[in-house]
C-alpha cells in the first residue's frame, strides 16, 4: 500500500491546475472594480455575494469531486437533491428550535441517499452517469412535488439567524464554507482518498491495477456530492425563509460552471479547490452587477449563459469526453 501512495505522489496534479484557477480571481476582482464604480454600496454587494457564493462553493465542490472521477462522470441530480433535502429538513424542524440537529442530519442523509442511489444506478444498470443522474433527479423531484408541494414551512428562527450572522462585512456562512473548502483542499491534495480519485480520473484501469478500490471510492465520491447538495438545500432553505420547488434550479449550470471556470478539467483527473472560491465569487459578482444595472430577468439569463459559455470557449478544454 505504501508503494502505491509513493507512486501516486508523483502525479503532476499541481502543474496541471496551477495557472488556470488564478484567472477566476482576476475575473472576480475585475467585476468587483466595475461594481465599485457603478454601485454606491460596493461593500454591501460583496457581503451579499459572499453569502450566496457559499452555496455555489458547496455545490461546486460536490460536482468537482464527481467530475474528477473522469470522463462522463457528472451529477445532474444536484438541483433536485437541494430541493428535497431542503423540504425534508424544514418539515422535520417544523419551525421549532428543538429539532434543528435532526433536520440537518436528515437533509444530509437525503443527499447521501441520492448519491448512493446514483452510483447504484451507474454501477448496476451500467448506464452513463449523465443519464443515471438525470433520471434519478426527476425521480427525486417527483418526491418533492408529491409530498411537499405548496408546503410553506418557515425555518426555525435560530437557524435563520445563524445563517444570516455577520462578523463585520464577512458572513458567518461564508467562513463556515471556507473552512469546509480548506478541509476539502487538504483531502484532495494530501489524503489517500484524494489521490485515489485523481488516479481513477486520470486512468481508471491503471488505478484499478494499482489495487485502488475503484467502486468504493466512486461510491464515496457520489455520496459526498449528494451530501454537499443536501447541506446546500438545508442552508438555502434557512437562508431563504423556507424550501421551494424551484430552489435548486439555477445550481445545475452553476455547479458545473464553478469547477470549470475554477480551473478543473471537465474531462476529470484534476481538481482545484481555490478555483472554486474564485469562480463562485466571480459568478455571483456578475449576477449582482447585472442586478445593479437593472437587467431584466430574461436578459440576465441570456447574459449568464453567454458569459459562462464565453469563458468556457476561451478556456478551451484540451481534452474531451470520449
Amino acid at each position, binding site marked *: 500500500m505504501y508503494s502505491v501512495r509513493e507512486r501516486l505522489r508523483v502525479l503532476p496534479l499541481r502543474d496541471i491546475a496551477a495557472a488556470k484557477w488564478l484567472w477566476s480571481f482576476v475575473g472576480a476582482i475585475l467585476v468587483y472594480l466595475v461594481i465599485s464604480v457603478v454601485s454606491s454600496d460596493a461593500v454591501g454587494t460583496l457581503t451579499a455575494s459572499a453569502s450566496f457564493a457559499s452555496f455555489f462553493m458547496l455545490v461546486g465542490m460536490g460536482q468537482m469531486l464527481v467530475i474528477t472521477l473522469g470522463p*462522463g462522470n*457528472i451529477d445532474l441530480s444536484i438541483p433536485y437533491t437541494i430541493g428535497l433535502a431542503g423540504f425534508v429538513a424544514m418539515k422535520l424542524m417544523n419551525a421549532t428550535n428543538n429539532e434543528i440537529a435532526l433536520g440537518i442530519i436528515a437533509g444530509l442523509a437525503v443527499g447521501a441517499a441520492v448519491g448512493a442511489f446514483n452510483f447504484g*444506478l*451507474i*454501477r*448496476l*444498470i*451500467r*448506464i*452513463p*452517469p*449523465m*443519464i*443515471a443522474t*438525470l*433520471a*434519478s*433527479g*426527476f*425521480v427525486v*423531484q*417527483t*418526491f418533492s*412535488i*408529491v409530498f411537499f*408541494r405548496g408546503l410553506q414551512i418557515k425555518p426555525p428562527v435560530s437557524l435563520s439567524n445563524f445563517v444570516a450572522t455577520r462578523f463585520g462585512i464577512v458572513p458567518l456562512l461564508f467562513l463556515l464554507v471556507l473552512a469546509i473548502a480548506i478541509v476539502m483542499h487538504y483531502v484532495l491534495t494530501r489524503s489517500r482518498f484524494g489521490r485515489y480519485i485523481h488516479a481513477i480520473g486520470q486512468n481508471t484501469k491503471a488505478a484499478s491495477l494499482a489495487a485502488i478500490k*475503484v*467502486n468504493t471510492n*466512486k461510491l464515496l465520491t457520489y455520496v459526498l456530492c449528494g451530501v454537499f447538495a443536501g447541506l446546500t438545500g438545508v442552508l438555502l432553505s434557512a437562508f431563504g425563509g423556507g424550501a421551494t420547488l424551484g430552489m435548486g434550479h439555477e445550481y*445545475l*449550470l452553476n455547479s*458545473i*460552471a464553478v469547477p*470549470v471556470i475554477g480551473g478543473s478539467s*471537465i*474531462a476529470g483527473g484534476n481538481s482545484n479547490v481555490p478555483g472554486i472560491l474564485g469562480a463562485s465569487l466571480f459568478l455571483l459578482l456578475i449576477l449582482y452587477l447585472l442586478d445593479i444595472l437593472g437587467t*431584466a*430577468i*430574461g*436578459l*440576465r*439569463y*441570456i*447574459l*449568464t*449563459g*453567454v458569459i*459562462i*459559455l464565453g469563458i*468556457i*470557449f476561451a478556456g*478551451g*478544454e*484540451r*481534452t*474531451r*469526453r*470520449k
Partner: protein
Amino acid sequence: MMNLLAAVRRGNSLQVLLLPILSMLVILIPIAVLRPFVLKYVGLQLLLNMAIPLSLATIGQMFAMAIGEIDFSIGNLVGLVTCIVGTVMSHNFGLGLAMLLGIVGTYMLIGAFLNLRKLSSIVVTIGMSFVWTGLAVTIQPSPGGNIPAILQKATSLAVPFVPFPVLFLVILAVLGHLVLFRTNFGILLRGIGGNLKAVSQSGHSIAWMEAAVFGLVGLLGILSGMALAGITTSADANVASNYTLLTVAGVMLGGGSFAGGKISAVGAVLGACTMTLVGTLLTFLQISPDWQIGAQGTILLLVLFLSGLAQAQKGARYV
C-alpha cells in the same frame, strides 16, 4: 408498413427493436384495456398527438447522440420556438423567420466549436439552455401569444383511414432511418460515433460534420416547437421543460446508446411514443400528473436495467 419493416430489417436487425416495441406494448395494452376507445381513429389521434412534437425533438436528440454528443438545451429551444411562432411571427414574420434561421446558425456554430475547441457538449448546451430560456422569457414573459392558424391545422389534419399522428410518426421514422442508413451523411454520422479517428483520417472534416449534425438538431427542435405550438395553441417558454429527459429517454429506449454509433430512428420514434403514452396511462389510472416525470424517469431506468441484464456478460462499459 411493409416498407418500414423491410427498411428495419435491412439496417438494423429486428432484435434491436424488440425492446422498444415491447416497452411500448407494456404501456399501450393497459391503456387499450382501460379505454378500448383509444384504438379507434379519433382515439389514436388524441392519444398520439403529443408524440408528434416529442418524436421530432427525439430524432434531433438521436442525431446528437449518434455522434456521442448530447443536446441538453432542446427543451428550452422548443419553448423558445413556441414563443417565436406565437408572438414574434404574428407581428413580424420576417423577424421571426430570421430568429429561427439564427437558431440553426447558432447550433451549427456550437457543433463546430465543440469539435474545434474540444468542448464538452453537456456543459455548452446547459449554458445554451439559459440563452434560449432568456430569449423566450424576454419575448413572452407569461404563457399566451397567438399561434398562426396554419400550424393548428397542420397538426390536426384529417387523413383518410390512418390517424394523422400515426401516419406522421411512420413517415418520420422511415425518413430518419433512411438518413441514418441510406445516405453518405448517415454513414459518416454513425462512423463518428463508432470510430471518430477512422472518419477523421479518411479525410473528412469532423468540424463540418458536427456543424451539420447540430444544424439538423436545431432544425428538428424548431419543427418540434412549431408542432407543439400548433397543438397547445400557446406560446410558453417552459412548455417543454421535460423534453431533455424525454428525448434522451426516447433515444435510449429505442436502443440507441450514449456511446454513439449504435442508433435507431425507428426505435427513437417508438421510444418517444412510449414516453408520451406513460402520461396517458397515469391519467387513465387516475394517478396524479405530479407523478408523471418521476414515472417516466423510472421507466427509463427499468428498461435500461432489463436491457443491461440481457448483456450483463459483456462486462461493465461505463464504470
